[in-house]
């Protein structure tokens, strides 16, 4: 099984700090007064970089250093991932684009049309990460759909997209979507449907993945728990006669020495903790993280769960030497994970670090492992 690596594009800002409120690249953070902010959208100097120039730079870095694609996460204040994909498509030659978006907010037919055009534009380099998220009173979009309803809408969305794309003339009457005699004209047929990347732990989410996903993103957890989830989902997909692949999203703090990696993370954590900025979503800790929390957030060898407290994205990350991190990833690969969407701040420099130091190590080890297995 070949392994694919995505780098995550920081669609809602970037910087050296662990904490999003301290990021100095892009204009997504509250005003920072003690230092200049780099690559703002609203400051267009002659020949100067804006935020999209920097995103393009990171995408190029990911391509140069050997990643297969970029995952563009959906965040409330971030750039819209489909627009980012379209803007950067002709600036990368081989890179796959994996924009994350909430399917219920789009017409299924129109989303298919966008995807078709994108596939023609890029030679089939688009994949979809369809997401659901908890809608709260604070959700910027003003919708209050339950996760279950979002999944039901996504299910119909995918029914329509797949039927429209693959089986014209396609007619469908669902609760949320309908179409009559749909399908693209012969001149436009040929490109493949984007691969569908889903995630979620609820019963409805697992059922949706079994029916529709090509790849299911799992939470980063122990190997044993990961194996259990893979077995469960594999069984569920088999009911539909389908085979799923599995993915993980993770922050990576990797250095030559394990001690350096942990020290670097601890130092950055201490700086965050010293700022006493309030962190949303930190359980039982409305005052933000304290220095003492660091050790409590270690969740086993090379796993640290503090990332989700200080920035949008996956909560858990992998920390250690290049060798250790490569071994962890190899272990997940042996458990059945074949997609790794990695990220680290700042994303440009870290793309080079991870792409140059870590990926070759993983690739050589997993290739060797695959050779032994066969």
């Amino acid at each position, binding site marked *: 099984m070949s392994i694919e690596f995505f780098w995550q594009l920081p669609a809602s800002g970037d910087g050296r700090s662990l904490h999003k409120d301290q990021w100095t690249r892009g204009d997504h953070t509250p005003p920072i007064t003690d230092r200049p902010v780099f690559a703002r959208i609203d400051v267009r100097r002659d020949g100067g970089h804006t*935020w999209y120039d920097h995103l393009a730079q990171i995408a190029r870095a990911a391509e140069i250093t050997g990643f297969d694609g970029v995952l563009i996460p959906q965040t409330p*204040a971030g750039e*819209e991932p489909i*627009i980012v994909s379209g803007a950067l498509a002709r600036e990368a030659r*081989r890179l796959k684009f994996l924009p994350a978006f909430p399917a219920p907010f789009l017409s299924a037919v129109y989303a298919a049309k966008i995807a078709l055009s994108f596939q023609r534009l890029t*030679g089939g380099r688009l994949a979809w990460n369809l997401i659901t998220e908890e809608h709260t009173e604070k959700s910027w979009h003003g919708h209050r759909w339950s996760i279950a309803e979002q999944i039901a809408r996504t299910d119909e969305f995918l029914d329509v997209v797949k039927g429209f794309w693959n089986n014209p003339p396609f007619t469908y009457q669902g609760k949320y979507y309908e*179409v009559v005699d749909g399908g693209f004209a012969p001149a436009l047929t040929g490109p493949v449907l984007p691969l569908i990347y889903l995630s979620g732990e609820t019963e409805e989410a697992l059922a949706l993945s079994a029916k529709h996903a090509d790849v299911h993103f799992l939470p980063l957890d122990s190997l044993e728990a990961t194996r259990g989830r893979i077995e469960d989902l594999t069984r569920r997909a088999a009911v539909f006669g389908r085979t799923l692949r599995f993915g993980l999203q993770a922050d990576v703090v990797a250095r030559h020495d394990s001690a350096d990696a942990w020290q670097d993370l601890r130092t950055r954590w201490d700086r965050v903790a010293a700022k006493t900025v309030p962190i949303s979503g930190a359980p039982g800790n409305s005052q933000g993280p304290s220095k003492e929390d660091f050790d409590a957030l270690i969740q086993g060898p090379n796993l640290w769960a503090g990332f989700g407290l200080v920035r949008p994205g996956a909560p858990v990350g992998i920390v250690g030497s290049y060798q250790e991190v490569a071994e962890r990833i190899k272990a997940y690969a042996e458990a059945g994970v074949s997609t790794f969407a990695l990220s680290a701040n700042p994303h440009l420099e870290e793309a080079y670090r991870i792409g140059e130091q870590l990926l070759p190590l993983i690739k050589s080890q997993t290739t060797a492992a695959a050779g032994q297995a066969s």
Partner: protein
Amino acid sequence: MTQFHWRIPIHGCKGDIASPVYTRGTWGPVSAGKPAATLTDGEEGRFPYHDYLLEVAKAAEISGFDGALIPSFPDSEDPWVIASAIARHTKTLRFMIAYQPCWFNPLYAAKAAASLQRVSGGRLLFNIITGGGGPQQLWWGDRIAHDDRYTRTTEFLDVLKGVWNGGPFSYQGKFFQIEDAGLPEPLAGQVFPELYFVGSSDAALAAQGKHADYDLTHLEPRENLKIKFARVAELASKDGRTVKPAVRFNIIARQTPEEAWDVVRRAWAQVDWDARERAQRGQRRGDGVGSWRTDVTRHTKVEDLVFEGLWAGFGTLGSQGSPLGFVGSYEQAAETIDSFIQLGVQGFILSSTPALEEAFHVGEEVLPLVRGSTSFKTAVR
């Protein structure tokens, strides 16, 4: 300031207007001698059709157009994909996305549009199309009746504007219900895209009175235009607003009238009348109103279709839009555009075939004459 936009041929293009099929892009049959732009596999070192579309956009920018219309058809490339690429590959060109409100939830549209404003420095416009109804609308997965579709358009734009600057904005409409919504910083507060509206019915004009900046009309005889402009003005004034007239038409301009008419005559001689009659019989009809057409048969001659200094044969040549357009010299073209400015037109969407080469004929030769004219300089701003 009067705006000039060039139309991006999103459904394929011909290298020669006389060609019966598209020779740029993959829409026509594959044949020997097709240029590299027909390749769509996106492989390294090769050129998908999008690269040609970006070339057209750059031609429009270089030759002096203010912007480019990116239309949308069921069987065409998608304007959002093209627009986001144009945003990165041009510097000053504005781009107008043809958009139906049923395609995105307004909150998603707001976020995508704000992102486009950020990537482009505020160069986005919308051409709001409410949709023609009938089988084509069902193809899109949309089953809303004609007048209700305009209600939805109004609601869509209510919400788009409501959340644009950050909110909190709540809305209880027939089609959209939201609570305390608003674009987050730093997406909030970008320049709001100017809105071109299409539609002729009372429901359409009532909807655009509230939100439209421009009323876009396919070119019609001047008396028809005057009536339409007056209705638009009257309905918009009920909302205390001004909606500026805009027209869209095809144009073939050359140094001399003879050269321009030679282009048309040569193309006319290539018209496949049998295929044309077959196509007319099979046309899907929507429930939009206001379509204006001149009957053209195999017995019609080029000069039969000339009136008011315009020519009504563009549809027969396979061009999209109104059959009525302009053929003549650069000076005549400038005078014609000037006459529309005097009628009150403040937005022009011009198109021609081939889109790349003709952009220079119009942008380089005609627009400077127009922009030097008295009416242009004194037009309502």
